């Protein structure tokens, strides 16, 4: 279980998060939704230690993560796939994965085999530079690179950004399967609320840095007011 408790973050005079509290239960997908500038990315960056909160804490089970460095937080089992994927374009697919595997308790060979099984296209392109991959393949690589470290929590920032609907659907399916089969806890930041709510069990809606809804995905999906005012989803 990972919990954010009263997180507030400011960038100078701009307050990006205001007293954000929520819990992501073990083995579930929690969608964090909201419009541009709602504070979704800042929330993930705060959890993984890239941003220091002005107040509040993040805890993983009984351990407080706040104040630790990103390189230590990832060793505690919190993987972060950043916005824009963050694959190292100059590296081959396998070099990207080897980098992710350095803190893994699993052997490199087993880790690579596991990722190639989950994402077969990466196995086919293992010697290819990441710069030559398509957007969907890059997203798979970014996820595989985080997963090869065997995290217990995965933070996914806008995985569908710039991807075709079909590719997005495949990715969401993969995330859902990973969660079911490995017991992974996923915090999924998405602007594509529809796709995220389809696979999430819980949803947190942010608006200008505040939590305006924290409920089951089904309830959020049915709430016309939330859909219309905060998620930009037109009632059908």
């Amino acid at each position, binding site marked *: 279980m990972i919990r954010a408790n009263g997180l507030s973050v400011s960038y100078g005079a701009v307050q990006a998060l205001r007293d954000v509290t929520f819990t992501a239960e073990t083995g579930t997908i929690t969608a964090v939704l909201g419009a541009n500038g709602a504070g979704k990315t800042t929330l993930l960056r705060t959890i*993984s230690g*890239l941003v220091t909160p002005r107040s509040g804490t993040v805890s993983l089970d009984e351990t407080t993560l706040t104040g630790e*460095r*990103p*390189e230590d937080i*990832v*060793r505690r089992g919190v*993987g*972060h796939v*950043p916005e824009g994927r*963050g694959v*190292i*374009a*100059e*590296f081959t697919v396998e*070099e990207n994965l*080897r*980098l*992710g595997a*350095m*803190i893994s308790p699993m052997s490199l060979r087993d880790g690579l085999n596991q990722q190639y099984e989950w994402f077969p296209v990466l196995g086919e392109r293992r010697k*290819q*530079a990441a*710069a*030559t991959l*398509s957007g969907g393949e890059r997203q798979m690589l970014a996820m595989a*690179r*985080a997963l090869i*470290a065997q995290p217990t929590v995965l933070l996914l920032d806008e995985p569908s950004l710039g991807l075709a609907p079909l590719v997005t659907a495949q990715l969401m399916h993969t995330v859902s399967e990973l969660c079911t089969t490995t017991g992974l806890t996923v915090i999924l930041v998405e602007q594509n609320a529809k796709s995220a709510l389809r696979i999430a069990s819980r949803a947190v809606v942010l608006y200008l840095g505040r939590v305006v809804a924290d409920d089951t995905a089904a309830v959020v999906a049915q709430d016309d007011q939330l859909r219309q005012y905060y998620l930009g989803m037109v009632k059908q």
Partner: protein
Amino acid sequence: MSSVLTSRNVADVLGGITNGVIYSLVALSLVLVWRSTRILNFAQGAMAMIAAYIGFAVLAPSTNYWVSMAVAIIAGLALGGLTERVIVRGLYGKPEINPVVAMVGFLLVLESVAAAIWSTTSRGLPTPFSIVDWQINHKPVALSPFALYEIVTAVVVMTVIALLFQFTKLGLKLRAAALAPEVSRLLGVRVGRMLTLGWMLSSGVGAVTAVLVASNYFTGLTPTTMDGVFAFGFIAAAIGGLDSPVGALVSGVSLGIILQFVGDYLNSNDIILVALGMLIVSLMVRPNGVFTRSAQRRV
């Protein structure tokens, strides 16, 4: 065969390679730091000079050459690490002019300190091999055992660096920290340590270079020993591409050979003009360097 080896052109090529590998090592030092921290280390030559002084001047003149070389390398590694921690770390993320000014200032400080401690008088360093050219049929070949030692040392250093970066976990982390520091932190890489290590490696390579340069009978060791060599190494790095270790190697050797021909067929005073001309043309045609490549999408 012997007439070919003793011909004027072959002599220029061999002399050019001997000078060129030194430029390549300087360029490699600059590339190592540039790739990891996006800082042009204008004090690189002066740092290398200090390491050479520590290796040879601090220890008794009778000290074994190889022990002194090892001490110089260790001093270079330490000076590189210390420089990154004390001076450079505070410059990350600052305007581009700040590190330039800081490193030029550091260069002047190091040269002044060296002059104050060891004076500006040139010190001849012992050479482990003869500097007299080999001869074939009583005709000199423009290659001495010491020149061959310089070439072999440069090749060994570059090979070790290349193997380290390409085939080891440490090399992967060094490259990742340089290319994508934030992502690397998210993958558990201790980026600060990698940057320090990058500076240490660069400075270690610089120390080897300074010892080779100062061991040359005609140069000796002075506080400004590395200034000229640094200028040509810098030009080689800029032509090859500051991101490209291969570029550093190829352009350094190429520059050495071209300048040797210029000195022989034109005038030795024209060497710096030609080098600067090559730099200007290269920056106009390939601003990012001849060996900087762009990836092609392949599906």
